[in-house]
């Protein structure tokens, strides 16, 4: 009966549903986008390396003046050796030095950054080598002029897709023999091209390019995500000792873990998701009010019909149910269409942003439940009014 009543007024039923359709579709899409960006960031962080920790030089006071952290020269290769020897929660450790400059091959040149590390450097950053080989510790000991290049650098200097292994390029006028090409990582969440790099033994970068004895940071891997906190504590203890810090002195270094970074970044996207979801939720609410409005108009417009139904034996509860079911059908159908559109919209967004957008089943279920609740909630009052009409008055209603 309710279905027939809705069919009799197709256009209106559709317009009423439209509010719900848009509401549900936007809830699903927005939550999927929020989830997608969160996942994308998590993937990025995971691609930075597994269970990674890093030590950066901290702020220093020199005669009461706070110094920028980059001016600190407190981290050295000795720290790396100490960590390797004493911290059992740390499974891999490498110094990191970096320098920006121009890479030149023949008449092609490209501005890039060279990172110096040891044999474990790539492992820590969970970076694979697609052709050639990794740098070795003996090359690091001998400050060998060898390097690995990222895909972007290879493309810019040698041309799309060409394997430059074995060629020699110049970086800041130092010739480097290319021993391998790095696996492609793409952009990170800040839009930075992670493949625009060169990697060389840290000693080479330290001595031949930077001419310095300190290192810029220490990169480490903890044995597992659970050991990350333990590793952090061990490293802090070791570094305080090697840096000869007194009991009341602040650390002159900072230890950051990938975990912390991940937590910060995901909390940002979570807020974003809640915000998007809330906006979409409001549109769903507005859609529900639309249903209530139409049901109200419908009750007034169909007063005679209600009177007739009562006079031929419809009980109040029959009338109530009919209108209630009409409004539930509107919202549930609207909800189902909305879910389909939500999936489609998510797929479109995925195609355009290349984020790993995943529609959460929980959001689909949520949207559906909310729809049904809206149908009952906003249908109840008009339906109640219809059922309380007096058949005599309703029949005479003009």
């Amino acid at each position, binding site marked *: *009966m309710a279905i*027939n009543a809705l069919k*009799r*007024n197709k256009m209106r039923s559709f317009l009423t549903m439209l509010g719900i359709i848009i509401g549900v579709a936007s809830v699903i899409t927005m939550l999927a986008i929020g989830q997608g960006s969160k996942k994308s960031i998590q993937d990025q962080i995971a691609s930075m390396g597994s269970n990674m920790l890093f030590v950066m030089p901290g702020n220093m006071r020199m005669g009461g003046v706070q110094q920028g952290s980059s001016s600190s020269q407190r981290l050295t290769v000795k720290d790396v050796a100490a960590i390797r020897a004493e911290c059992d929660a740390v499974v891999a450790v490498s110094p990191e030095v970096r320098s920006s400059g121009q890479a030149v091959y023949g008449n092609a040149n490209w501005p890039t950054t060279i990172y110096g590390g040891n044999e474990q450097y790539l492992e820590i950053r969970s970076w694979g080598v697609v052709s050639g080989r990794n740098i070795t510790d003996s090359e690091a000991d001998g400050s060998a002029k060898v390097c690995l290049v990222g895909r972007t650098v290879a493309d810019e200097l040698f041309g799309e897709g060409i394997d430059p292994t074995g060629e020699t390029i110049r970086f800041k006028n130092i010739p480097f023999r290319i021993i391998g090409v790095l696996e492609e990582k793409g952009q990170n969440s800040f839009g930075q091209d992670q493949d625009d790099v060169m990697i060389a033994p840290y000693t080479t970068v330290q001595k031949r390019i930077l001419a310095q004895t300190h290192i810029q940071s220490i990169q480490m891997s903890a044995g597992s995500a659970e050991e990350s906190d333990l590793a952090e504590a061990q490293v802090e203890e070791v570094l305080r000792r090697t840096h000869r810090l007194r009991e009341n002195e602040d650390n002159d270094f900072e230890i950051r873990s990938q975990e912390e970074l991940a937590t910060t970044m995901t909390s940002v996207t979570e807020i974003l998701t809640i915000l998007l979801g809330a906006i979409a939720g409001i549109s769903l609410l507005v859609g529900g009010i639309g249903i209530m409005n139409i049901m109200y108009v419908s009750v007034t417009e169909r007063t*005679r*019909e209600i*009177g*007739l*139904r*009562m*006079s*031929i*034996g*419809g*009980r*109040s*509860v*029959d009338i109530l149910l009919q209108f209630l079911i009409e409004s539930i059908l509107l919202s549930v159908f609207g909800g189902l269409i909305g879910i389909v559109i939500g999936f489609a919209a998510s797929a479109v967004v995925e195609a355009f942003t290349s984020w790993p957008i995943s529609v959460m089943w929980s959001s689909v279920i949520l949207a559906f439940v909310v729809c049904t609740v809206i149908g009952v909630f906003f249908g109840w009052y008009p339906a109640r009014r219809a059922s309380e009409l007096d*058949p*005599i008055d309703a*029949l005479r209603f003009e």
Partner: protein
Amino acid sequence: MGEVTVHALRGVDLKIREGEFVAIMGASGSGKSTMLNIIGCLDRPTEGIYLLDGVNVAGMSKNERAAIRNLKIGFVFQSYNLLSRTSALENVELPLMYNPNVGSRERREKAMAALEAVGLADRMDHMPNQLSGGQQQRVAIARSLVNDPVVILADEATGNLDTRTSYEIMSLFQELNTKGKTIVFVTHESDIARCMTRSVVFRDGHIIREEEVKSRLIAAEMLQALPVEEE
């Protein structure tokens, strides 16, 4: 604002026997509509009793009265009250929708039979707006018949129709009455009332005249007496 109690009906004692065709007449405000509402179980008398088919309806709850209306009473209204954009067949099926004892196949069969009985077998799938006034009223009559009620209540059922169609509808009612249906028919047209077996006239809430119809008119004969319309 004070409420004024209006005694629409006072001291009315009316008995309608099975198989009768009773006209209820009277000017507006005479109480005939209230009478019809009570007979139709739409309203309850504040005092007194109303026995329908031997059962006192006056003491029944809203839902019980709804069930009585569904099973024992068929309404025919002046303005047809068909559901728009709903086929004649579905309109006739409507009362059976509220009868839980009738399945969907039986419902369809009964509705088709009722439409055949009013001569609309070929118009079952038509929408009300595709039917003439007389045809719409026939659909309404079929709807009142479909549950096989003990009484059919017609409220000025010919009021919206021209003379010719009125006689057609009356002839249908007379045919139903001959087959044994009890009919109560509210009208203010005396020639329509003369088609019935008894007339009851109301004024100011009282029955002022109650008489058997002498020289009863046969609607089918009158229809033939009317000048033939040019096609």
